[in-house]
């Protein structure tokens, strides 16, 4: 099942094959989870919304157009709509992760296993600063940065997933980069401590 393509898995999911859904989940769990986590800034909400995303994939699998095809765009459209919907329901103040809330990452497991507590704390602080900087962005700017930088999507693919013209997305990207420069700048963080080391 693991060797099948996304489209083959989708065909099986449309026939209500749970093994195919599991294979798809294993393939995309980290990407989708982090996409939601970086958008909402909350591990708890990301945990909830990833479940909803895959449940919706199960029910909507028959609507995926095999011929038109871009599966990645399709799955991110679902995750994005669910995230936007959730965020519109609640008045999010973008209270992004506290240092202690930042979960252990898979890289931390591998790379920081033998590191000192100071190094681990430093890593967490770095993540916290970036999370806060992203949290200060307007949702429509943050979405572009996350899809482009973390999900490694092309602007054409993002345009397809979000139904927003490529030119608009690029303009938003420039705007977001300018703001992030400001938010990540040590002088903007106050005091002598740099935001990100």
């Amino acid at each position, binding site marked *: 099942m693991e060797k099948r393509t996304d489209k083959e898995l989708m065909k099986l999911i449309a026939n209500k*094959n749970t093994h195919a859904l599991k294979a798809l*989940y294993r393939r995309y769990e980290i990407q989708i989870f982090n996409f939601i986590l970086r958008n909402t800034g909350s591990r708890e909400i990301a945990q909830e919304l990833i479940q909803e995303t895959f449940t919706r994939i199960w029910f909507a699998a028959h609507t995926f157009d095999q011929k038109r095809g871009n599966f990645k765009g399709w799955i991110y459209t679902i995750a994005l709509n669910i995230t936007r919907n959730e965020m519109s329901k609640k008045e999010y103040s973008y209270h992004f992760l506290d240092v202690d809330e930042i979960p252990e990452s898979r890289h931390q497991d591998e790379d920081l296993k033998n590191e000192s507590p100071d190094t681990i704390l430093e890593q967490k602080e770095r993540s916290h600063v970036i999370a806060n900087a992203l949290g200060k962005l307007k949702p429509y700017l943050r979405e572009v940065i996350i899809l482009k930088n973390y999900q490694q999507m092309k602007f054409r693919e993002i345009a397809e997933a979000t139904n927003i013209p490529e030119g608009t997305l690029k303009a938003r990207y420039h705007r977001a980069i300018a703001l992030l420069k400001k938010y990540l700048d040590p002088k903007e963080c106050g005091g002598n401590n740099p935001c990100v080391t």
Partner: protein
Amino acid sequence: MCDMNKNHLLLLYFHEGTDREEQKIQNHVNQCTDCQDYLLLLDQTNQTLYKWPDHRPHPNTWDLIMAKLPEKQMKPAVAKPIISITPILMILFSIVAILGVIFLVHDKMTLLPIWETIKEWVPVQFFGSFGVAAILFFLFGILVSLSLAPALILDFQSKKYKYHYN
């Protein structure tokens, strides 16, 4: 201030343009400090963003997803092909076997001394020797089915309740 559209720099930075486009933009960037600065800014910001590593969802997430799916819809895993070759082969084999038997009956029937008389009859002339053999074969089949019918009906009646409760 450089009048280059900054979107072109995105094409170059993320390698989303054609080789020719990227080469053209690169040639401009080589001579333009504003564009070089902007590319540097893009690179620094991106390098910083990548320092927020990926995280894993909770290990029980899959079980929670499964719990949300209605049981009725969890159907068999195997996708069935639209046309299966096995029944087609079986039908072909049956046709060949029936034709073989009819041919054998026809062969033996024409050797009988009585055939010389029968072959003058109009219906026999109409159907031919092979047609007559086929009719005899099917009549024999019907006869066998009818003779077995009571036994089959009784057998079905006796198993009916068993199937029901199983």
